């Protein structure tokens, strides 16, 4: 039985609320909003505060309209489209996220490149999916709280990613449109059962975009934690104490 890392067991949870994190988080802000980086740019710390940046590729999977593009925009602090436009190819979005490791106190910048591809485009053009899968480090499986079928289809989606070659890929499930509880189609109980069966972290997102990092921090911390953990396992150096929890 696989195990789910307890949130906050590797990275400091809610670190964005600590005073000491300000100098790092200020690097991903510009005039109190999230800063947008071109590919040739990155957060620069003063020379006496050396920080490593590690790159990861994250694929966002889910049916059309579930909220893939909106999620990528939200995580990067971009304007969330309020109209649904099909994404007609692959679009990637870069998110920088500073993280403090619990054990060593070391600070890292995670550079997460989110890969979003419209479902129709994936179906119409064969080369897109392999391109999304190339050297991918994590997959976010999306379902929408307002669309039962998207939830029921999760197992099919995940099954496609469980070949041996993709064993090392970090998997996370994200429920979108959590704010639309009036139209909620997926009960909390069902989510619990699902989480138990698959032993995958399930997060939810939706609602007003907050000024700070409150709405995205839980997801980004969970994702970075899983990625870091996977890296350590792969490197065979998982000999630090993990507070693990069997679900």
């Amino acid at each position, binding site marked *: 039985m696989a195990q789910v890392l307890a949130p906050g067991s590797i990275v400091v949870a809610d670190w964005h609320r600590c005073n000491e994190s300000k100098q790092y988080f200020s690097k991903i802000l510009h005039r109190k909003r999230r800063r947008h980086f*071109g590919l040739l740019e990155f957060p620069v710390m003063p020379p006496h505060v050396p920080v490593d940046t590690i790159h990861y590729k994250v694929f966002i999977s889910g049916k059309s309209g579930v909220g893939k593009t909106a999620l990528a925009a939200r995580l990067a602090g971009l304007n969330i*489209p309020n*109209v649904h*436009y099909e994404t*007609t190819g*692959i*679009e990637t*979005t870069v998110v920088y996220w500073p993280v403090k490791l619990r054990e060593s106190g070391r600070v890292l910048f995670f550079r997460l490149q989110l890969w979003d591809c419209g479902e129709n485009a994936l179906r*119409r053009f064969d080369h897109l999916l392999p*391109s999304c899968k190339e050297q991918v480090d994590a997959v976010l499986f999306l379902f929408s709280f307002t669309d039962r079928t998207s939830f029921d289809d999760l197992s099919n989606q995940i099954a496609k990613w469980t070949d041996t070659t993709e064993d090392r890929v970090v998997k996370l499930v994200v429920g979108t449109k959590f704010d639309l509880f009036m139209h909620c189609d997926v009960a909390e109980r069902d989510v619990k059962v699902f989480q138990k069966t698959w032993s995958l972290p399930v997060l939810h997102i939706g609602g007003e975009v907050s000024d700070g990092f409150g709405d995205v921090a839980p997801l980004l911390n969970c994702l970075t934690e899983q990625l870091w953990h996977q890296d350590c396992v792969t490197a065979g150096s998982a000999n630090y104490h993990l507070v693990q929890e069997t679900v």
Partner: protein
Amino acid sequence: MFGSGQGVALSCCETEGGGKVAWRVFQDSVMLIAVSGGGRHGAGSSKEEEVHLQRLLENVWNCMVLVLGQDELTNMRNVERLKRDLRSCFSIIDQLLEDRQEGILGNLTHCTDSLIPPNTTVIQEAVDSFAKAADSEFGCLIVHGRIAAATEKWWRLAPQEVVLLSALVRTLSGSGSASCDYPVFLPQGSPTVAHRLLRFHLLPGADVCVLCGPTPSLHRAETELVGRFWSPLVETLRDCLAVGERCLPGSVSLRPDVLALLLINRETRRSVSCVRTSTNHPPCAPLLPSKARCWELLKLFYIFSIKHYFMQEETLCVTPEERAHKTNTEDFVHGFSHQPIHCYLVTEECKSYGLQTPQHQLFLLIPLSVPTFALRTVATQTLSDIVAATGLSPLM
């Protein structure tokens, strides 16, 4: 439809309130209909509105082909499916309808909005070698939504394709994404086989793109090529970005009495345009039109000129039969044995002057305070100033 059954072509109709309906059938299969409310464009007359609508129809059709390919549009098997697939075009079509970005005139002129960088050669070499490394002959650098450099082959694409690709890149870039791999069909060059448009957001405001075949993958191009070719040029790119909406490098000094200009190179089908933000304007002088109004007036004057006096360069997406009754220029121009080379218009808001040479068309807005007899000098001098300063630039 009744009319065409009888061999009559009706292309447009108008209501008393100035509303207009225009339509056109593409590839004998899809009819697009454009409706405008009328009275929206202030000074624009209904003739101008018609040019707008016809352009819009053509642009929208090209967008549909760009995203879906011609086959899917002409041999439709399942209308419901097509309707769903068409949603993929909505974001660019909305951009065309809103026509929001100031200073982008390509949708109207079918010339590529360009920006002349201060360091043309370095930028040109970088675009050429980047494209080559990406196994492509088609590459371009877009700064503030305008082309700053492109490979030779990029310019050989049909002008409307170049304009359309620029529009697509603006839409994609506007969403803030870092890179993309977009299947695109070229309405002229490749309406049935998709190419891949790879786009990389180098710096806010600067995107490089290549059109390529199956290789390289987006991941590989980004990790192996973008940094290698563009990291050493960050400062050069920042200098390009600094040119801003003026589109002309600092070495070109414009006369103080030019409010706005649009310069078209008729051979290369490229254009630069800018509106002055009024500097040290004497407070007692009559109020100048706002920046937004200047852009609007510039468009209206362009339409006015090509409608009445100047020829608009042929647009390639029109078949010869269609062209017979589709040109925007009125018949009396064709009736002339000579071509007007200068024209001007004085309105309550400003004076406008247009001139055309075999190679260029220039459209200027000039404050009312400048005497009408001086307009011609302002125009000819502005043209020669720009040509002299950018003469070596392959752009103009």
